[in-house]
């Protein structure tokens, strides 16, 4: 990682490495249920180990590795990038907004300069400069959303608003947690969330959609979501299920001492931004993975994670794909993770 990247939160006197100190531990209670848990973005969140949340885009020590992984995935499967024809303007809008977010968050690494009609984007970590004219495809080597995907660790989905609903009409998603952009593209917000248990009778999804449709240009909110993953595997999309699905069973059947190293808490920090020119909603998904072994270094976290996993109703555990792994996770936390139940 380039030393020019000014990390928002540094190691504090707890002496924990960045991957732990900056991890967005999502649980504030001992139980978890779905809710419209949105809050205004941009305010730092203190955790038992450090903190997170200062910027809507987040560059960390995995930057170069994650970008390499994204290019590998897109090379093998270009359908991870999708854009319906009417989303051209939203792609441009998203690209420039993300460039601005990067430059605001990490001014030593990124810059976006203006020269009349043209703009110059600079990424010093990659040693790259690109000038372009907003809306002019001949000035960029890639479609705008594909282009900006080479510079940030977030996955991006763009939602068009019409007929009183939101539609997931474009996206660049290489690090999906058990879903498929290619399957979902063109669906409405409610269709996309159709398989989620409980949220429909509890009105969570319509309320979230109402909320998003009421956002005005420039407004930015965030929420978190979570699941469990075996190994530090960012790509758990439906398309590659044959590669990762069986690991959950193999982990459960394998030795308990391996669980702490291999089983990860997977947290998505999601930002929701109303774009100005297109009026689209930009949905950013940043995936953080932290092993149970690392979580156990923060006693408040291991205790709380244990309570949440232990209490989580089966229908929610099933939807999150953790029916096989939560048992071993709980046993490991009791046996090696310092949790007394």
């Amino acid at each position, binding site marked *: 990682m380039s030393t020019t990247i000014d990390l928002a939160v540094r190691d504090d006197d707890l002496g924990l490495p960045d991957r732990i100190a900056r991890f967005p531990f999502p649980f504030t209670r001992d139980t978890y249920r779905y*809710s*419209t*848990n*949105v*809050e*205004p*973005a*941009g305010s730092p969140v203190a955790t038992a180990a450090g903190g997170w949340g200062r910027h809507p885009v987040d560059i960390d020590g995995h930057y170069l590795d994650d970008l390499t992984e994204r290019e590998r995935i897109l090379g093998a499967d270009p359908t991870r990038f999708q854009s319906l024809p*009417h*989303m*051209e*303007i*939203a792609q441009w*809008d998203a690209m*420039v907004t993300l460039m601005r977010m990067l430059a605001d968050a990490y001014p030593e690494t990124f810059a976006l300069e*203006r020269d009349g009609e043209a703009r110059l984007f600079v990424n010093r970590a990659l040693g790259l400069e690109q000038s372009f004219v*907003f*809306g002019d495809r001949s000035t960029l080597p890639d479609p705008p959303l594909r282009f900006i995907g080479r510079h940030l660790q977030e996955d991006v989905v763009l939602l*068009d*608003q*019409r*007929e*009183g609903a939101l539609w997931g009409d474009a996206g660049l998603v290489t690090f999906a947690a058990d879903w498929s952009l290619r399957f979902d593209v063109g669906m409405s917000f409610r269709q996309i969330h159709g398989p989620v248990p409980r949220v429909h009778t509890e*009105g969570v999804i319509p*309320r*979230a959609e*109402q*909320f998003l449709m*009421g956002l*005005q*240009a*420039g*407004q*930015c*909110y965030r929420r978190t979501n979570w699941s469990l993953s075996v190994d530090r595997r960012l790509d758990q999309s439906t398309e590659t299920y044959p590669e990762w699905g069986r690991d959950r069973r193999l982990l459960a059947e394998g030795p308990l001492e391996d669980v702490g190293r291999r089983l990860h808490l997977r947290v998505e920090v999601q930002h929701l931004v*109303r*774009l*100005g*020119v*297109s*009026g689209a909603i930009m949905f950013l998904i940043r995936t953080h993975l932290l092993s149970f072994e690392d979580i156990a270094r923060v006693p408040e976290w291991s205790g709380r994670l244990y309570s949440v996993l232990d209490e989580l109703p089966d229908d929610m555990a099933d939807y999150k794909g953790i029916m096989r792994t939560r048992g071993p996770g709980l046993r490991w936390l009791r046996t090696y993770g310092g949790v007394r139940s």
Partner: protein
Amino acid sequence: MTLTSDVPVRNSAGGTELQLTVAETIALTPTVRHVRLVDPAGRTLPSFTPGSHIVVTCGTGPGGRPRRNSYSLTGPAFEPDHYAISVRLEESGRGGSQWVHDLQVGDRVPVGTPRSAFAPILTARHHLLVAGGIGITPILSHVRAAVQWGRSFEVHYAFRDGDGAHLDELHDLCGPRLYIYTAREVFRKRMGQALLEQPIGTHLYMCGPTGLVDDLCERAGRAGWPDARVHYEHFRVGDLDPGEPFTAHLTRRVIDVTVDSGVSLLDALESRGVAVPNLCRQGVCGECRLPVMSGGIDHRDLYLSAAEKEAGDCVMPCVSRANGPRLELDL
């Protein structure tokens, strides 16, 4: 177009008030004045969606309260170096338009960040844009976007002879796609035809006097246009009514908290040091729900179900209020 309101501008995450200065004023017609507003430090202003308006604080009205009007933005939308509005003098109005007409270069003007309520539909096959009088202002920003992004469109613009604001600019942008009318009957007749000859997938956008909008909506309905393809600028206030003042009695603490008009119950509780868990402050997330012992409630949230609202035993204090002088909370 103009929307008048005395409602305080409520700014949440990202929405801020901008202090701009007048860079230029131009008399477009005998009744319409065009004003360009810029950031005093020369900074770029926030981008906006075509059809957006800004809420301008036009001095103070009767009683010394700020007078706020909404005006459609007519200029470029992407990282603009200025916001432009065109304001028709309303002789019978409350003085807001007169205040704008009196502005001089260098005057300071507080404006809210742009709000979108009349956006183009990006999937439309063709855009049929119709303006009456000063209703041309949001249509003009639609036209700019349509030209830039190569959309199929046409503009029908009706105005009183000699009072056609932005006519030269529209001619330049639209060429033969602009149809202008100064005779009401000619406009009515031509629109009847225009509503019948559009390709499937066309969206209709209208901004103008109520009579024109109502008439066209009705005729579009009779001509078989689906409602979802008919759009008109509606002057709904996006922000909540400031409401009447009331007293919140906290039964456990045995204290009274005064809630002024324009102040939320949540804000009033917090300013008395009563902590209430909350997130969105917009009546959506459900975090700030409070139990109610007695008193009528004006529910304004999107969170509680109809049955919960009917029961009257809880309130979302970030947006909802008492609908009487007193509300008793179990706090």
